[in-house]
């Protein structure tokens, strides 16, 4: 049984500052197909409520050069291809969730950026809606949850604008271009966060999303990250801290080699710590647990075995390691796939109930 002496808001604030609290905070992400499977197996449909989720997003700030554009350019029996809000050509599944295929990117050169995409970005927005955020805040407060500003971080925005190959090669050959793109996206994100703030919106923290790594490590060297992306990450973390609130950073992939830079930038937590990319809270907590909170890392590949013995080992050992510094929150290491049964997921939540308490 979970100990619930504190509200989610109080609990998360203490988790992010590594101060004593009652039980570990919780959040989760699952694929749409997983939810459908679980509904067929007896799940009521509200994962946040079932889990006892402690976090609530107030916005999704995601600057785009062509906001509102979603032009259908091709269709077959399984997919639809659009010209999207970055003016890129992307293909989506019709009847399945998942990230789209990027067929073509429209911003391929510094000339494209300066002549078209950058002026459009600067003229566009805002990409947040204060009235909608206030409704979300009211809901978060009713449920006692930690209410956070959310958005895309500049490396992810740059990749979405230019594509992986152009972005990564430009980091080597045209670093001033990448610096300008990353800085522009950060400027826009902070502009919109300040718009929300000026509207009177309260928030408890900032949670920024972007995937800067894959299983083989960061998408670029730590030195290139430090040179071109880290300054913008630090600006975002500094902005949150200047408002007296913590900063969470989401990235998939193996980021072991840049964890020190995350600490230096002042991140308060890193999430979701992808286990199959060699992130392991049992190794990270002794090394970083006094300076950085750790969020996630429960391996979806282990969940998908539906093997209770393996799952118990995974959950219990990771909770024990993370909880040693009062800086651990539950989340899977990615999104829960549909190969995980509802019975298995209930078992996982039971384990978190049983082993995730600091107080009885």
């Amino acid at each position, binding site marked *: 049984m979970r100990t619930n002496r504190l509200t989610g808001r109080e609990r998360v604030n203490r988790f992010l500052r590594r101060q004593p609290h009652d039980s570990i905070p919780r959040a989760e992400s699952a694929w749409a197909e997983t939810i459908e499977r679980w509904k067929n197996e007896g799940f009521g449909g509200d994962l946040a409520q079932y889990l006892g989720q402690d976090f609530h997003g107030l916005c999704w700030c995601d600057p785009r050069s062509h906001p509102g554009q979603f032009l259908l350019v091709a269709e077959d029996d399984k*997919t639809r291809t659009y010209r999207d809000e970055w003016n890129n050509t992307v293909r989506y599944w019709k009847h399945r969730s998942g990230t789209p*295929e990027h067929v073509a990117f429209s911003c391929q050169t510094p000339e494209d950026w300066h002549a078209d995409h950058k002026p459009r970005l600067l003229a566009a927005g805002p990409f947040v809606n204060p009235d909608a955020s206030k409704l979300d805040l009211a809901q978060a407060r009713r449920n006692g949850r930690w209410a956070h500003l959310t958005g895309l971080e500049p490396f992810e925005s740059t990749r979405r604008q230019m594509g992986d190959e152009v972005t990564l*090669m430009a980091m080597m050959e045209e670093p001033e271009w990448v610096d300008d793109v990353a800085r522009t996206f950060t400027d826009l994100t902070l502009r919109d966060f300040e718009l929300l703030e000026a509207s009177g919106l309260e928030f408890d923290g900032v949670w920024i999303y972007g995937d800067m790594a894959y*299983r083989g490590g960061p998408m670029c*060297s730590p030195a290139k990250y430090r040179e071109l992306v880290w300054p913008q990450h630090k600006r975002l973390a500094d902005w949150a801290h200047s408002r007296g609130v913590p900063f969470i950073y989401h990235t998939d992939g193996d980021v072991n080699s840049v964890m020190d830079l995350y600490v230096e930038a002042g991140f308060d937590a890193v999430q979701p710590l992808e286990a199959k990319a060699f992130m392991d809270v049992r190794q990270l907590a002794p090394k970083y647990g006094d300076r950085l909170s750790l969020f996630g890392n429960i391996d979806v590949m282990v969940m998908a075995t539906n093997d209770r013995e393996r799952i118990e080992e995974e959950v219990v050992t990771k909770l024990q390691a993370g909880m040693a510094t009062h800086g651990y929150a539950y989340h899977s290491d990615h999104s829960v796939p549909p*190969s995980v049964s509802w019975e298995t997921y209930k078992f996982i939540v039971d384990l978190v109930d049983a082993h995730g308490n600091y107080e009885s």
Partner: protein
Amino acid sequence: MTELDNLTEAIVRGDRKEAVRLTQERIDAGDEPKNILAALVKGMDIVGDKFQRQEAWVPEMLIASRAMSQSLALLEPLLVAAGIKPEFTAVVGTVEGDLHDIGKNLVAMMWRGANFHVIDLGTNVPSDKFVEAAREHNADVVGLSALLTTTMPAMKATIEKFREANLPNTKVVIGGAPITMEFAREIGADGFAPDAASAVGLVRELVGKA
């Protein structure tokens, strides 16, 4: 240091202008095409080794690969005229149900950089299409990529199709974010590469021309 060593170095640095200039210079000087090719391949091998030692990263690999492909474009007519064929023929694609392509693209680039003839089938490729392409091109190797745990079963289905098709000279290798050696063994793949650079050595080892 010879001029061909300089060409190798230009590839390692990913300096495409210099690599193209030196390639043209060596062609004009009458060097054997196979020697120029060897200098280019050596450069990509060095980058691949550095990548595996985490001394080079994806951006360094990408610029080296681009320098290689632009240099190779100059050399190709001479290679064809001299009857020099690519080292291997490889088919690559992302399995059915999966639209992700960066991992597959990196493998294709590294294979091309190692002088493989690569047929890229794209994303969301049905099992039958992999088999047809392997048969049509007499492929030495087929590379299956998947990013999602939900599309891993399509790898197993594709390997079963290859077993049914009885193409004993075609090796099937797999890779992608959720893929492990354990999974590769479980589904009967001939090999597994944890990253794009390793995929080159894997093929050389599997096909026996290392």
